């Protein structure tokens, strides 16, 4: 499946079907993240059940503390 993540086309492995999978794919599962799918923010409690479709535009922001 092809997704647009943070503005760039990304080919996802077959098992990726949910927002949670996308987050894990980028190694961000232990981070505090904000995710938007097709311009709609996704509540973190729904990361595991929010399905992502072919071509979805996903924005992921993860919080960091450095400065």
């Amino acid at each position, binding site marked *: 499946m092809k997704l647009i993540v943070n503005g760039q086309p990304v080919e996802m492995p077959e098992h990726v079907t949910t927002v949670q999978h996308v987050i894990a794919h980028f190694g961000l599962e232990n981070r505090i993240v*904000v995710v938007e799918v097709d311009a709609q923010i996704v509540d973190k409690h729904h990361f595991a059940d929010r399905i992502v479709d072919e071509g979805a535009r996903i924005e992921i922001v993860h919080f960091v503390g450095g*400065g």
Partner: protein
Amino acid sequence: MMAEQDQPSFDRYSRQMSFGPIGTAGQQQLAECHVLIVGAGALGSTSAETLVRAGVGHVTIIDRDYVEWSNLQRQQLYTEENVRQRMPKAIAAKQHLERINANVQIDAYVLDARGEDLERLITGVDLIMDACDNFETRFILNDIAAKYRIPWIYGACIGSYGLSYTILPGDTPCLSCMMDIIPNGGESCDVDGIIAPAVQMVVAHQTAEAFKLLTGNHDALHRKLVSFDLWNNQYTAINIQAMKKQGCSSCGDQATYPYLQSPATEKAAILCGRDTVHLRPSEAMKLDLRTLSEQIRQYHSRQLQVDIMNDFLLSAHRDEQRIVLFVDGRALVHGTTDIQAARQLYIQMINISTVSTR
């Protein structure tokens, strides 16, 4: 006598005043504003320089650390001389900034910002710039901003990545709305590295937002959580207004400001990735470092060697460990992540100090 062209003049702001949305009126507003910058590391020094050059009338800087070699690659206000003198960042920043713009009032405080310090320093502040290197301080800052209804601008970076968000109390979600718990550790620039352009990009976002707020151009505010990765060429902006929580303990109707309730206890923290322990006494002290230094040289030179002392701190070492003791009784113990070992060295120093001040 200085020639007329050598006198600082309002003309220094001419290009900024020619920028329509700021203009002469905006410049006057900047001159009447007071900005508090929490942290004077990479974000803080860059932010401070931009605001002071721009003519913000009053800038207060808080920082708990001193200048080291590893800072110079990106912390643009500091020099090799500052490193050799182990100058506290807040003081070095003030000295440098006063040479850039003598018309700005710059106040500098060498301290580890906690609620009571911020409550004392917040009077008259129009805006808080986040330049922290940790989330604990950011949550305190978030509570102070909510309690006194002062906007603050979150900014953080690591590697080539950075993000920023402008928090307007009573309007946007706050930091507590965005995360239920303080993130533990996570990435630190000491482990993962950082490139200066990532710092500058975060500060570019923060200071542009600051100019908009301080000159009354609220309609121009970004209003989104922005992030970027300069190495992987990614830019993102998310509207997070939906994350605002009515029952938020920091900014909701029944706010309790939980991060301002911290008890006055001794605190020891391992600074992530730095092989350093930060120790803070339950109450601020006022140590006589000169006498302490003499006592060490005379009576304890077999265990402890004083490296350097200035008006703000004393640096000494025992074997592989180096302790930097500040006037207010805080200490950074380098060369260990063992809190007990750090505390032992700290107590040895404090005991000598107590004897010496009797």
